[in-house]
């Protein structure tokens, strides 16, 4: 990992991050487009949830992680407090791994 590579990745990442705020005041966004941006953020977040819960690289993530996230998802839907949701998910996955489930 060269310093040039790190700087290139950092610069590109920062451009992604700063584009929205810099263009925000300049573009006249329609209500519909604003709404699509909000829904788009939700779409991306749920896609991140499912791909990182179910897959690793190009394959399956393994049952331990899937089971842990599933427990968390069910508890969150049932409006259990955030802390309990996250601890239960991590504990489920950790205990399954301890028991030898990949």
């Amino acid at each position, binding site marked *: *990992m*060269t310093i*040039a*590579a*790190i*700087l*290139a990745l950092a610069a*590109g*990442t920062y451009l*992604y*991050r*700063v*584009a*929205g*705020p810099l*263009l*925000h*005041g300049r573009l006249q966004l329609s*209500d519909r487009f*604003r*709404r*699509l*941006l*909000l*829904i*788009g*953020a*939700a*779409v*991306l*977040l*749920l*896609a*991140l*949830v*499912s*791909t*990182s819960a*179910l*897959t690793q*690289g190009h394959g399956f*993530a393994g049952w331990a*992680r899937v089971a*842990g*996230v599933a427990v*968390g*998802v069910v508890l969150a839907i049932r409006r259990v407090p*955030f*802390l309990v*949701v*996250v601890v239960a*998910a*991590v*504990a*489920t*996955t*950790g*205990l*399954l*791994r301890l028991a030898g489930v990949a």
Partner: protein
Amino acid sequence: MRSLWRTVALAPVRDIALVCLADGVVGVSFGAISVAGGLPIWVPIVMSLLIFAGGAQFGAVAVVLAGGGPVAAVVAGLVLNARLLPFSFTAAEVLDGGWLRTLLGAQLTIDETVAFTLAQRDPARRGVTYWTCGISLYVIWNLAVGVGTIAGHAVGNVDAYGLDAASPTVLFALVLPLLRTTGAARPAVVGTLIALAATPFLPPGVPVLLALLGLLTVGRNEGVDRSAGSNGVTA
């Protein structure tokens, strides 16, 4: 009344602290994995300060440690981070007000910051949530990576503790209110199915972007009024 307000204000702080704790352990492992793979100590530290995106940092280091060139590492990282571009538009509203504030605050845009911010129903609380979550994560992430480069071998593989279940669970819990109230549920589910179907065939990061195709299922006139009101999107 005052104690009610305090409860409302404290809940996100406690939740943010929990996410910082989980991400901190992941940061320690990033520092440890990088150094154990033979990279100089400054590499994970500078990467974390400047890039500040766990997925892309792990991805880029994995490419290099697997023998790929720096160009391949940069491309992999930029693809993984491309979702930050649409996220930056949702962060834009809280970053209004002064160029320094905008330029510094932009560096804090990351999945958790955006999710915590959007999960706030009261638009007035979004700004303070963004900065609280962003600064806390930035400080903890960089400290943790630094610790990991020195003492990381003591932590070992964090997946053994089940911490890989934390990030998807956190993001789900945070996005759930949006799915319930904004009409985002159908496009999000459709997008997720597209992303999962594409995962075996496309480089990491691309399937998540393809999920945006789910936006095609948003109705033409659906809930335009609501977007300006209860969702807190100011006109």
